[in-house]
């Protein structure tokens, strides 16, 4: 797990005069769960969006297995699987499509698999995620937890190498939060993807994290095992915890 799979080098992004990312360097191991933490509005989602190519960084490079990704983030042969998938904070499911159609969307529109192959792959994945009976229902007819799982199924259906999770537990009660964390941990083991997670749920999220990166004032202030974080700088750590609580209350 120590081998560096996803490498981020000198990533910079600013909005007007505000420097949000100020030369981020990060090495992420294959099939690991890395959590980005930091105060609200510090640029965690911007960081994730730069990696996902939803936002163009001002400078810097993203390398996968030592190869620069450039602006083309699709795998050369998409039938073999995508490089990145993104699970959005609010799931971003299409209201007019059923759960099955939402999951099948990238296979139908990009990979172009035959209808039977799409049905087989999507049905199998929905069953693996305990969504077997939800396939014909629309997102509005599903519970919050089921919507999360549909969003995860859509993110996984293309066999991505890296899955980016943008605050996947936002708006969920504590019990469901643990459910989502267990789901990420469980499916990461089962599908073998590399997970990069943005979360405010400190310290709960540490239980599933192999590494934690603490983003502060545009730089990575700490990167290492979650257990080392508290020992590293207790005062700042307690401040971060307070900021996480205030986000919860808001």
């Amino acid at each position, binding site marked *: 797990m120590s081998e560096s799979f996803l490498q981020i080098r000198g990533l910079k992004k600013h909005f007007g005069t505000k420097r949000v990312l100020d030369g981020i360097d990060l090495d992420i191991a294959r099939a690991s769960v890395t959590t980005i933490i930091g105060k609200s509005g510090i640029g965690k989602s911007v960081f994730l*969006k730069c990696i996902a190519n939803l936002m163009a960084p001002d400078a810097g490079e993203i390398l996968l297995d030592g190869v620069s990704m450039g602006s083309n983030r699709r795998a050369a042969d998409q039938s073999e699987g995508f490089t990145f998938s993104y699970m959005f904070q609010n799931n971003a499911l299409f209201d007019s499509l059923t759960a099955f159609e939402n999951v099948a*969307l990238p296979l139908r529109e990009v990979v172009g698999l035959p209808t039977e192959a799409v049905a087989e792959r999507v049905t199998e994945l929905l069953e693996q995620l305990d969504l077997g009976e939800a396939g014909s229902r629309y997102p509005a007819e599903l519970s919050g937890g089921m919507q999360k799982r549909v969003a995860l199924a859509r993110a996984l259906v293309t066999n991505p190498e890296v899955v980016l999770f943008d605050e996947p537990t936002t708006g969920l009660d504590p019990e469901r939060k643990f459910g989502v964390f267990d789901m990420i941990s469980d499916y990461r083991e089962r599908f073998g993807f590399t997970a990069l997670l943005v979360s405010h749920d400190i310290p709960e999220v540490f239980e599933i994290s192999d590494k934690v990166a603490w983003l502060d004032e545009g730089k990575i202030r700490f990167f290492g095992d979650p257990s080392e974080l508290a020992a590293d700088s207790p005062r700042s750590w307690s401040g971060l915890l307070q900021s996480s609580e205030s986000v919860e209350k808001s």
Partner: protein
Amino acid sequence: MIRSLGRTALGLVYEWGDWTVFSFGAFAGFLRQRRRRHKLVTAIHEIGGRCVPIVLTVGLFTGLVMGLQLYYTLARLGAEAALGDAVGLSLVRELGPVLTALMIVGQSGSAMTSELGFQRNDEQIDALQTMGIDAKSFLVGPRLWAALFCFPALTALFDLIGVFGGYLTGSVLLNVDAGVYWNHVFNSITWADVRGGFIKAVCFGALTISICSYRGFYTHLKSSLRGVRGVSESATRGVVFSSVTVLAADYLITSFLI
């Protein structure tokens, strides 16, 4: 002041350029999409199917009012027999394409802008991008192609029901001979008039649907407000810009056709 004027002019030129690139990109990109027929049929239903009742209703009442107004105007000149010419030509050349376009903008254009704006705010458009789907071609492309079919088809419906409305007022209510009315309608309207009306309809379709889509797709950049209010503002602007564009384009196209 001159600096501010220059900045506004440059902003407008930039926006027009951006809108043109957006529209052509979505239009051409649709041809590279998978499952084109399915998307086109859905878009035709969305733009065309849903607008049939309102187009028929407005068309009928327009024809009824025109029959009434033109009858009394022509009666002063002793030319009631020309009611069919007046109603038919006004509808086919001008009112049909313009009012149909305005109805579609009000019904489907505003809904389209709101839907795209909501999809932008809900990160659904970003989700498409992360899946490797060209969001413009996927969401806007089918609607632009559907508009090229729906606007002329609905204009034809509007014209037909409008002429029938003129007949109801002129012949059934005000006793203009039915044979005279229909004879004048068929003799006065030429293929050039019908073709001109369809040319207008196609142009209005392309312009209005691309304006509404552009406002919705870039609601996060074009609206001064955020969230639901931003979407509402985008929808309002989309409808207003489209309506003004229809009237301005009508004048331009008419001046070329006459």
